[in-house]
């Protein structure tokens, strides 16, 4: 930056008009009239953004965080708060044998071998550093390690309040406590400002922007807010998240996704910021791979609480059956894509939602208030007998009982010859009433694709095949780390590690 002349700053067409107007009072009418300057500007406010912001602020840099929504945290504050940490202290304390090989095997299997090995190596090798960063900020985790689908061993640290807000809130407090930090909410990132060497030197945003979830396509239709230009002396970290709520862009990738398809994402999860990175030359990777979360329910909107029951209780310690056959049809803890594909097959066109259930014991692993809420909502139901459960959902009671008896036998033998599920080592089968059940449906959950980054979180340019100077990215806006399908709990790992690395390198 220091060796660039001011004149050099201004050849980019997108900037020229704005800057000329804004720069009218300046002696050099070509220079952008900055409304403020920082060392680092972070776009977004989820896990990746917070890791980048906190880390760079800890280095003594001045940091601006911009978030278009009114609330801080995006999908991260409504997420389930399960953070995969391979080779963690809790695994060690609980005698769980994990290894690099096993982590890679699980992750590549789910990702259909499309994962970028350098990025996998990065998130594996820095997992404990990211965990420590959250602990240093004050995040708290339960002792019980979650075993999310597709993981061969339990690796999931779960926040003590059962949501990603258990990580974001302490990180936000830490960020604000550091000198020269600022958060601007309702501030929409619109454009990167580059100099004529292609280096990102700042951003154009709109303050007082108000996201409107009644619009079909907020990114293009919403004209609210006041334009401002902010200079980023060291660099910009793009951590704007995924686009599962972007009706236009997701349909371009998967034309069969209906506009009213349910997603677990907040309504602001749109593609605009990522598309701006593509506009200045970022390589797109895997953008058409959209992941459906298999643990949602059609009986509640959005992310809801269904996943709490299915991830922690029914899938791990119970089974899922097809209503038409009263039989199992999948490995309940396979990776997300395997399960979502199987579920969509049986759901078909007549909304034949599968039934997920377990007995009374696994629900004790849920946070009590989440269990109580889910039961009170009616999405989760309690039954004293399997007959009652069968009657409620129109299953064949005698076939269902055979299915359960067969599964219980598999648990006893420790082997599931039908679907290869890893069975509970503590012998928990489906035999102690009452039984808990719900209808299930996969919901649009995670955009696998995004901008290409290297293992320094630098965004790679399709123009030069080199990093775009001054531009870093982390989290769901990036592509390649998880391949075709991300394992549950690897998102927090990816976001925190890559955000932290961006904060170290910017």
């Amino acid at each position, binding site marked *: 930056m220091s060796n660039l002349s001011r004149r050099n700053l201004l050849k980019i067409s997108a900037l020229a008009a704005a800057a000329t107007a804004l720069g009218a009072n300046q002696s050099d009418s070509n220079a952008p009239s900055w409304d403020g300057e920082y060392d680092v500007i972070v776009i977004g406010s989820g896990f990746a953004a917070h890791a980048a912001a906190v880390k760079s602020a800890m280095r003594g840099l001045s940091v601006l965080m911009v978030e278009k929504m009114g609330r801080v945290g995006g999908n991260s504050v409504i997420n389930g708060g399960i953070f995969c940490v391979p080779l963690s202290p809790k695994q060690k304390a609980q005698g769980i044998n994990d290894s690099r090989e096993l982590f890679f095997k699980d992750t590549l299997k789910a990702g259909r071998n499309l994962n970028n090995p350098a990025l996998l190596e990065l998130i594996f090798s820095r997992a404990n550093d990211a965990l420590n960063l959250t602990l240093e900020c004050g995040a708290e985790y339960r002792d019980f390690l979650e075993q999310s689908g597709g993981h061969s061993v339990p690796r999931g640290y779960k926040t003590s309040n059962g949501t990603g807000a258990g990580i974001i*809130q302490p990180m936000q407090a830490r960020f604000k406590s550091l000198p020269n930090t600022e958060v601007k*909410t309702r501030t929409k990132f619109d454009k990167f400002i580059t100099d004529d060497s292609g280096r990102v030197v700042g951003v154009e945003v709109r303050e007082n922007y108000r996201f409107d979830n009644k619009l079909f396509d907020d990114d293009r239709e919403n004209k609210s807010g006041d334009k401002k230009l902010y200079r980023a002396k060291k660099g910009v970290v793009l951590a704007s998240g995924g686009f599962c709520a972007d009706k236009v862009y997701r349909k371009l990738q998967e034309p069969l996704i209906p506009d009213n398809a349910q997603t677990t994402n907040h309504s602001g999860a749109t593609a605009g910021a990522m598309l701006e990175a593509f506009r200045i030359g970022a390589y797109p990777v895997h953008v058409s791979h959209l992941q459906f979360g298999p643990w949602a329910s059609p009986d*509640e*909107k*959005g992310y*809801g*609480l269904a996943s709490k029951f299915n991830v922690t209780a029914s899938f791990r310690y119970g089974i899922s059956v097809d209503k038409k056959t009263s039989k199992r049809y999948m490995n309940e803890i396979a990776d997300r894509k395997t399960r979502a594909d199987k579920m969509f097959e049986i759901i078909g066109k007549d909304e034949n939602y599968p039934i997920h259930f377990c007995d009374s014991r696994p629900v004790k692993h849920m946070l009590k208030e989440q269990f109580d*809420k889910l039961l009170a*909502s009616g999405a989760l139901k309690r039954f004293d007998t399997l007959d009652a459960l069968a009657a409620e959902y129109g299953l064949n009671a005698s076939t269902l009982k055979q299915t359960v008896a067969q599964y219980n036998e598999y648990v006893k033998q420790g082997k599931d010859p039908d679907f290869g599920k890893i069975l509970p080592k503590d012998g928990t089968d489906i035999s102690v009433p009452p039984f808990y059940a719900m209808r299930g449906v996969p919901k649009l959950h995670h955009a696998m694709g995004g901008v290409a980054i290297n293992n320094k979180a630098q965004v790679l340019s399709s123009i030069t095949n080199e990093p775009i100077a001054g531009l870093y990215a982390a989290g769901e806006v990036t592509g390649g780390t998880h391949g075709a399908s991300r394992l549950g709990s690897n998102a927090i790992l990816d976001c925190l590690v890559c955000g932290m690395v961006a904060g170290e390198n910017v």
Partner: protein
Amino acid sequence: MIKRVLCLLFCLACAGFASDELSVKYPLKPHHEHLALGCADCHENQGDEPSKFKAIGDKGCLSCHKSKKLLAKRLEFMDVLKANPHNSVHDGPTLYCDECHNEHKESTNMCLECHEHEVKEWMGVTP
């Protein structure tokens, strides 16, 4: 502010009290109407053309309602289910007031975006 409200209660003809026409176009919430608030009580120093008034933001709301922490404290009894909308498990006492509360149109409840069924167990209609 409270003094001004009292003044208005005694002096309904004061300047700034909304006309019938304006009160139809820009209706107030019953609790605010009950206090006989006029346009200028919220839209202070914004001139006298209601169509050009701007939203008063958190600062405006909190000039009477004091602080988000205090509002969270008043609904502390809802913490039992971690369902205090002013101190939720996701956001704490940080949300913009107008994320949910609107004065001249129906309020919304952001919690409904994910907790469709539970919200009615947790709380009444958003004022």
